[in-house]
């Protein structure tokens, strides 16, 4: 049985002001025990998808099953099986981590004694034992994320949904969380996580669906996706804008990205001289040129037509490429 089976799921928000098709048509399957990454820019529909799969939002169309249970008609059963850490962390700032774990364990039906034990286990697991008596208000962003993750694990869920678990964390804290998530996967938990970071999807997810504008535009393992591009990526860099413009006329299939032009070809390294000759013939000055295997970045560019910017930029993650 599949852990998650999503078939043409759809969500339309209807209000007096506007109709928003947040999720237009999303399908994917997640096998048991894998980490599945939903990669997409701001507003792609990641959170909306997660909310539907976790029974918190009504599905407008299509269907989804978690461990064989339908999210619409069997939502109670689904809720018992899943753990959820939403994007907007629902954490009570006035309580301590210990109190939060204890309360959550009690709500999941553990006896008082079991709740105390479970609390200690989980505090240890997410590395918050030392801070456990402090009010959550005083925690750093990374500590809150780990707490959030811990709280979603209280009842040992079989399927875990994490909506942007590492957004806003520094690279070190992000790694800590990645290791944590991998350990969970190795322990048999199925993880569905969303991210807007390419390297997170690349490093962490066993399989990836790229979601853009409410649609899944590509799906597969990181390697499959990269292979789908075929060939290598040649990157030309230019110092002057005029050279860049002229070069675009020569390398007609090239895609511009700032002062760079990229082109995907078979056997990249061997084709470099040929391009360089063409450009120098026209007196176009190239500042550098290189060939490389495609990255997830290139895949993203190919399937969406624009580039998802690096993880250090939180303000504007999407940069449209002019055409």
């Amino acid at each position, binding site marked *: 049985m599949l852990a998650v089976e999503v078939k043409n799921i759809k969500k339309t*928000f209807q209000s007096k002001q506007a109709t928003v098709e947040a999720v237009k048509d999303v399908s994917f399957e997640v096998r048991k025990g894998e980490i599945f990454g939903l990669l997409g820019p701001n507003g792609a529909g990641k959170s909306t998808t997660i909310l539907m799969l*976790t*029974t918190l939002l009504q599905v407008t169309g299509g269907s989804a099953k978690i461990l064989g249970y339908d999210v619409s008609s069997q939502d109670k059963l689904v809720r018992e099986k899943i753990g959820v850490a*939403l994007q907007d962390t629902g954490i009570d700032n*006035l309580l301590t981590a210990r109190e939060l774990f204890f309360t959550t364990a*009690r709500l999941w039906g553990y006896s008082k004694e079991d709740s105390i034990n479970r609390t200690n286990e989980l505090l240890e697991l997410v590395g918050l034992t030392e801070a456990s008596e402090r009010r959550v208000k005083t925690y750093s962003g990374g500590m809150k994320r780990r707490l959030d993750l811990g709280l979603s694990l209280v009842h040992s869920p079989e399927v875990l949904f994490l909506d942007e678990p590492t957004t806003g964390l520094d690279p070190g804290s992000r790694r800590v969380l990645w290791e944590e998530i991998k350990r969970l996967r190795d322990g048999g938990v199925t993880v569905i996580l969303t991210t807007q970071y390419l390297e997170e999807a690349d490093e962490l997810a066993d399989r990836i669906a790229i979601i853009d504008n409410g649609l899944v535009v590509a799906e597969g393992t990181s390697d499959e996706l990269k292979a789908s591009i075929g060939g290598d990526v040649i990157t030309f860099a230019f110092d002057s804008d005029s050279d860049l413009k002229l070069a675009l006329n020569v390398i007609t299939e090239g895609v511009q990205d700032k002062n760079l032009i990229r082109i995907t070809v078979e056997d990249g390294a061997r084709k470099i001289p040929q391009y360089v000759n063409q450009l120098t013939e026209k007196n176009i000055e190239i500042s550098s040129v290189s060939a490389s295997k495609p990255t997830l970045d290139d895949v993203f560019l190919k399937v969406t037509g624009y580039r998802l910017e690096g993880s250090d930029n939180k303000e504007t993650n999407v940069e449209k490429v002019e055409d």
Partner: protein
Amino acid sequence: MNTKITFLTQLQILTKRLILRVVRRPLAELPNIFISAFFLFVYDGALGGVFGGSAAGTPFDFANGNFVNFILPVSIVSASVSGGASGIYLVEDIESGVFKRYQSMPISKWAIILAPMLVGALRVLIQASLIMIIGKIIGADPAVGSIGFLMVLSIAFLWGMGFAGYSVAAGVRSGSSQGAQAASFLFFPALFLAPTFVPREALRGWLSTASAYNPTTYVIEAMRAIMVEGWLNDVIFKGYLAAGTFAILTLTFAVLSARKATEKA
């Protein structure tokens, strides 16, 4: 391992958690209790001399010689407005996302909604009792005997539940804790468009008319009957009726609003 827990256990756990939140913010309790106690002292200080013992034998002797008895209900009603915190508790959880987390767990939504109301009720009981104790210390002495304190407390409780329901509805509908907070200002006109300082017969013109339609009037009058006059059964009954009806109406309104809010979008 984990087993299903009953609705009551859920309610108890969620209520405990909210109480913990209240205890962690003791200062939030002060304004209302302070205002209520302030009313008691200031009105007694300002008006007690005129309408208290020295009014005996004059047309102003409506306090039966003990102005604390007469003004205590005003403070109690003011204290019972603390039930309005229920809406704020609920909306805070909605705003922080805690509400969503609970919704993603197999917990009864009624337990999630009822817990803040219970804590609001508890708050009313504690604040009204405190005011009552202060009143007793400075000379309150119910005409019907000591049971009068309990009777006044029970009316205050119903009245406070009314405010709890009202605030939950206002909070859920406005979707913000400011909304819930702003809504509780309704209590101001409610408290003062009533026979607050003098009996209803002494009110004039529009205020007299307005107070007749204000349920607060009947609540205060019932408490006053208990404190000042004695067993005026029909007046006391009207007070219970007004407070009870208010509570039932607003709690129904709250439940309907909350049900709408917990429905999936």
